[in-house]
């Protein structure tokens, strides 16, 4: 089939059948930004677009789903944005563009080289990098003819753009057609409200954030090397440079003095033993509880007293949030995208608790885990939301321990016994005092709670339960936890009120508790 006649219109026509100009653009993969690469499979389709242009958006939305089929046939489609790369990638993803994504900074040399006055402009580059056809604006009949021409070059039929209304729509002015200084000014978005710009960029967990200006990020880093890598953040495996961690801390609202704790918590969740990958993408509601011990608690104003699990204290609220933003933004675990949580829970916004070591009658969590009491330690635990446990009536430690333990009997699921993963009990000061007065240590309480909660296997064979329950003799007693060590005990909360809480586990992940020392700034 001979190629159809030229379908061109606009300034690009002047370049018809001439060698295609070089592309001065950037892409995620530098090698993919050259014309040689784009035409390597046969032909290339360059779609020049701009974020601000509604017709560009329409073109990307209409052509995007066809890119994979075209690529399989030898036509590589690339959206060439007149916008920064991060904007380009976000817009392409939002609009379902499945081809390559390229970006050009002011003064838009690629657009100038191709003679653009309008975006979108679609350019077909054939074998030997020859300009074959150009279509200006959204013009479905002409684009269909252009794709037919591409098919003729490749010797195969290619899917045509959808013939949905409107078939034709004028485009917007290319930034290359404007004075360079004016274009540069346009490219710097002038939002009236930069808080709204953060939403527009997708740099949020759904709440307003603090814009991560270079000045704020530098202050957050406090002179630390921002290029230092803490590792890859699953599930998308974005690299957690210290600079990106600091950007997340700024977004979350942290003060610079919190940053060593944020950095330590980030290191902890990135430890493979924690399995952030599983926690980030699961349908479970798992959040990442950040427990802080040691002198740093008081130094940065972490609350471990009244309302210890609730709002009101900047350090608690923002440190946990910074860790979550790292997973959500740098790691790509955005809810509804790679985060597949069925319900989620509010602790996934951020959950940071400081242990009240001064009130606790016991050794603090970090000392249990082998650190010196004077060290500042962050411990991360995959957790469900807290369940309140009211007990104002127990008069013996045995009764109180029984009530606390049985409150967790339905943790994870009613009949899923035993739990191998940790349940975290946050014991309030009044409850802790009862155990202190009775001379109960942590281990005694833990073992009593472990021994208190068990049921015959036959009573647990209903709905979701464990293989162990199914295999056991119906009369065999099954404990709620696989071992006493699965019961984690912390002390925190206000001095009045007998309310403790239990946080159920994140199960099935092989996720372990991880502790990391806070580096002094």
């Amino acid at each position: 089939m001979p190629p159809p006649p030229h379908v061109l219109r606009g300034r690009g026509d002047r370049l018809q059948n001439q060698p295609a100009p070089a592309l001065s653009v950037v892409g995620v993969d530098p090698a993919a930004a050259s014309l040689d690469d784009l035409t390597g499979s046969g032909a290339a389709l360059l779609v020049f677009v701009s974020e601000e242009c509604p017709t560009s958006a329409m073109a990307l939305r209409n052509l995007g789903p066809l890119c994979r089929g075209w690529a399989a046939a030898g036509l590589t489609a690339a959206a060439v944005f007149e916008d920064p790369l991060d904007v380009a990638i976000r817009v392409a993803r939002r609009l379902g563009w499945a081809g390559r994504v390229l970006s050009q900074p002011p003064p838009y040399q690629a657009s100038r080289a191709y003679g653009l006055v309008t975006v979108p402009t679609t350019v077909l580059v054939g074998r030997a990098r020859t300009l074959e056809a150009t279509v200006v604006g959204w013009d479905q009949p002409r684009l269909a003819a252009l794709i037919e021409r591409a098919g003729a070059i490749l010797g195969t039929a290619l899917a045509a753009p959808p013939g949905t209304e409107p078939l034709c729509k004028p485009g917007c002015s290319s930034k290359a057609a404007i004075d360079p200084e004016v274009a540069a000014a346009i490219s710097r978005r002038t939002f009236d409200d930069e808080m709204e710009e953060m939403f527009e960029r997708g740099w949020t967990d759904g709440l307003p954030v603090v814009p991560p200006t270079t000045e704020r990020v530098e202050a957050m880093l406090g002179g630390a090397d921002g290029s230092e890598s803490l590792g890859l953040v699953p599930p998308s495996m974005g690299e957690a440079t210290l600079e990106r961690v600091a950007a997340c801390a700024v977004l979350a609202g942290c003060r610079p003095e919190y940053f060593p704790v944020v950095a330590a918590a980030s290191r902890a969740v990135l430890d493979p033993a924690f399995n952030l990958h599983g926690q980030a993408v699961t349908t479970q509601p798992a959040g990442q509880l950040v427990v802080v011990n040691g002198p740093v608690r008081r130094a940065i104003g972490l609350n471990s007293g009244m309302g210890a699990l609730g709002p009101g204290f900047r350090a608690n609220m923002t440190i946990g949030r910074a860790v979550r933003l790292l997973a959500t933004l740098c790691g790509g675990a955005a809810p509804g995208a790679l985060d597949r949580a069925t319900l989620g829970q509010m602790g996934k916004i951020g959950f940071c608790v400081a242990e009240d070591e001064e009130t606790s009658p016991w050794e603090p969590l970090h000392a249990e885990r082998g650190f010196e009491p004077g060290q500042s330690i962050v411990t991360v635990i995959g957790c469900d939301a807290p369940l309140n446990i009211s007990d104002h009536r127990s008069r013996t430690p045995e009764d109180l321990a029984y009530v606390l333990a049985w409150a967790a009997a339905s943790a994870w699921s009613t009949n899923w016994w035993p739990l191998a993963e940790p349940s975290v009990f946050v014991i309030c000061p009044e409850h802790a005092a009862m155990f202190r007065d009775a001379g109960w240590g942590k281990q005694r309480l833990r073992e009593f709670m472990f021994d208190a909660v068990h049921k015959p296997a036959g009573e647990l064979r209903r709905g979701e339960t464990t293989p162990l329950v199914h295999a056991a003799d119906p009369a065999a007693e099954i404990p709620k936890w696989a071992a006493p060590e699965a019961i984690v005990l912390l002390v925190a909360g206000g001095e009045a009120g007998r309310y403790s809480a239990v946080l159920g586990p994140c199960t099935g992940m092989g996720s372990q508790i991880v502790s990391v020392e806070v580096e002094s700034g």
Partner: protein
Amino acid sequence: MTSQYVSPFDERVMAPEPLAPRPAAIEGRTVALLDISKNRGAEFLDRVETRLQAAGAVTMRRAKDIFSKPAALALIDEITGRADLVVEALAD
């Protein structure tokens, strides 16, 4: 106000990954059946394997150690080296 921001994103991992070309037929192709080790995934793959073999495909069964972690690199290398296609049983 114009400001320069530090992006929390790693743009290198944000670009869409194109799907591999789909074959026109599966006869004679080697299909890896990957069980991620979730409950009853193997039963699902049993049925898929029967149908693939009836269609002329050669099958190979493999399993991840645990469903909640990425597959081991050695397993990925083996599958990409030996199989033309992959069917993954994701969830119960």
